């Protein structure tokens, strides 16, 4: 079906495309009404987008992990909390059959301060560390392909999408972490979440050196998460059982979807972002319904004599109802399409400035289209009583 067929398809009864002709009869009015609906739709899209972006930002680190199974302390209530387990427990995983590789991921959210070249002050950053000789721990471009650079002494990779005040986006050559100078050998793009403003990736050796002044060696460093890859064609559920069995009871093993769901549940339960943006979407819907009601009601009121004439010459109410509802849908689409296009620009601009992963998805498109059509149909259904009540004998 092409776009040009649409008005024809919506023609009730196969005669004159009444809904379409009514819609385009007055170009100025069409512009006015679609602008009204478009901004209500934009309001909903922006609020829905923020809600998604909030979750996506907090899930981005977990999603970037490159593994089939993840082992960590059962007392971890979210991924982003320092709660490591003993290194000797980690070693048991390597011997489980079906495991292709297991790499320890070390992390700290509250112990590393990056001196920003922007204001020369120390700022808390998130740090991920791993053995650069081992198998990759992150899927992220810029980490997986540059991890060999971390073999050199005192080298780090920085997140160029970190908050601007950290000065990681200006291609810095050198940086200072906890007072010690480090060489910046590359960058990746991960973005901040609502806890960390920026991220630094380093080798396990440097991690141990900066944290304990070198007293601890990587071989004994407590592990935040074990990133496990299975051999090809290995059954994930069965392997999960085997890995769990090899570990002491204080540790849990999760698949990647389980880890993402775990993190999502934490965010959903504890943040007030969802209700705030839900309220925004709801208001957008209410405003949109009201605007569409005004548009449809006015249009019906103006054309009441014509509708009465149609009734007078024998058209049934069902025809008129279909016509009005078709016009409601067309009006909704006339507002939706420009709003959707405008929203792409809004997402892009706000996403870049606020470092938020605002992205138009099929799901967002579907939800917002559904809400738009729902508000227009609701408004049409409310306004239609006038047409049904129209008495041809009384109108003139």
């Amino acid at each position, binding site marked *: 079906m092409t776009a040009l067929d649409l008005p024809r398809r919506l023609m009730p009864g196969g005669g004159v495309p009444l809904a379409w002709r009514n819609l385009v009869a007055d170009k100025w009015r069409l512009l*006015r*009404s679609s*602008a*009204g609906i478009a*901004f*209500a739709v*934009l*309001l909903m899209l*922006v*609020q829905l987008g*923020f809600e998604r972006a909030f979750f996506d930002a907090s899930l981005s680190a977990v999603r970037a992990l490159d593994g089939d199974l993840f082992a960590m*302390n059962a*007392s*971890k*209530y979210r991924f982003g*909390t320092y*709660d490591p387990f003993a290194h000797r427990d980690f070693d048991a995983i390597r011997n489980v059959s079906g495991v292709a590789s297991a790499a320890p991921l070390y992390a700290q959210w*509250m112990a590393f301060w990056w001196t920003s070249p922007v204001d020369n*002050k*120390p*700022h*808390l950053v998130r740090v991920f560390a791993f053995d650069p000789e081992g198998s990759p721990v992150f899927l992220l471009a810029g980490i997986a392909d540059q991890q060999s650079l971390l073999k050199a002494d005192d080298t780090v990779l920085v997140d160029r999408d970190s*908050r601007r*005040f950290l000065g990681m986006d200006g291609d810095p050559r050198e940086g200072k972490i906890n007072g010690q100078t480090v060489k910046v050998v590359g960058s990746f793009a991960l973005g901040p979440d*609502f806890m960390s*403003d920026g991220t630094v990736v380093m080798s396990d050796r440097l991690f141990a050196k900066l944290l304990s002044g070198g007293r601890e060696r990587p071989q004994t460093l407590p592990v935040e998460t074990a990133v496990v890859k299975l051999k090809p064609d290995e059954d994930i559920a069965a392997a999960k059982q085997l890995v769990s069995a090899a570990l002491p009871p204080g540790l849990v093993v999760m698949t990647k979807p389980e880890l993402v769901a775990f993190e999502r549940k934490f965010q959903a*339960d*504890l943040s*007030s972002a969802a*209700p*705030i943006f839900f*309220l*925004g979407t709801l*208001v*957008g819907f*209410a*405003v949109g319904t*009201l*605007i569409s*009601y*005004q*548009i449809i*009601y*006015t249009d019906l*009121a103006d054309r009441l004599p014509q509708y009465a004439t149609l009734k007078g010459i024998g058209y049934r109410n069902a025809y008129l109802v279909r016509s009005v509802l078709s016009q409601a849908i067309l009006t909704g689409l006339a507002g939706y399409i420009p709003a959707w296009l405008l929203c792409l620009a*809004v997402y892009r601009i*706000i996403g870049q*400035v*606020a*470092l*938020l992963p605002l992205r138009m998805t099929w799901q967002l498109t579907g939800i917002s289209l559904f809400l738009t059509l729902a508000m227009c149909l609701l408004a049409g259904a409310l306004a239609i009583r006038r047409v049904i009540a129209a008495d041809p004998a009384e109108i003139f």
Partner: protein
Amino acid sequence: LPTDADDPPYLQASAVMRRLRVSLHLAWRILVYEKGRTALALGGVFIAILLVFIELGFFVAVPQGGMLVYDHMRFDLLLASENYQYQAQPWQFPRERLTRAAAVAGVATATPLYFGGGYWQDPKGGFRLDFFAIGFDPAAHPFAVDDIERQRDMLEEGDTLLVDDTTRPIFGPLNSGRELLINGRRMTIGGTYHLGTGFLGIGVAMMDEANFFRAFGRRNNPVNLGLIELAPGADAGKVAAALRQALPADVQLFTRDELKAHEDSYWTTRTSVGLIFGSGLIVSFIVGLMVLYQTLATQIARNLPEFATLKAIGYADIHLAAVVLIEAAIIVAIAFVPATAAALALYAMIRSQTLLPVMLTVPHLLGVLAAVLAMSAGSAMLSVSSLRRADPAEIF
């Protein structure tokens, strides 16, 4: 019609008044003529104003989450490290700076505060949660919170803490007597207090400084913040200047106003909070403008024949414009009252849910009223352009 220019000046003025009265009368008659339509217009404008109130509330209040705990502390000046970021990342400075500050003329007291991020776990196991602890000397009364003052004896018990009652449910029951492992050390909940966790974290607790030092393995030096109270009658500006003179550059001093400006700007500009709610505010203004314009344009379009008649009998465009402007102003003024009432109710709801200080201040109220009146005047002027086209000869 005789022109006003022929009249003496005092009569010209009264002629203007007379015309204005006629316009006012006409606008009122239009509004009461079709009550259904007017109710619809009022509903639309009501929602538009409410939308602006909601977005403004979030935009103003969310950054204030950063001030919540400060607002309940007793101090005239706040002493902080030169590296101070925001409340939850205050950095630290030598206790000696407080001793030096206390010796400055006009300073009554200089009280240290200790901040720490710790771990909270049930002795039976389960999640090990991050919480935020504040340590202080209860005798110094740094907090103006009744619950804390009242439970001073409890606070001074060994290994006891008071917990904010808005600490999230994931922390489990907060009943007094519950035993906990705080950083691995056995402590007991002595009671709860009602303040709000602000942006300190998802769980906040207060401790006597002796308990804090034991739980966090710290000493009384360095300190995280210093609360300075002035002697009665001391001039805050002069004392602040003297303090800045007396203290080295590793600390900085904030008056209450400066602190509020600092925290607000941290949350609005450094994080994405300002942008998220700022863009919500802008979109809400545009949607409000659309609703107003849609409503007014519809009203005028419906009365176009009548306006054309008025033109034909000699009314100038400016008088018709006055009618439209007055009509818009009346609609806004009437819709503003229930919108304000609804906003107050919504704010109270948000306040009790989030403990964010969402307040409807007089400047905000007047600001929204002015903005909405300007928006309605703007959309009235836009819709008046269609009036100018009202050609008496063509309309009928």
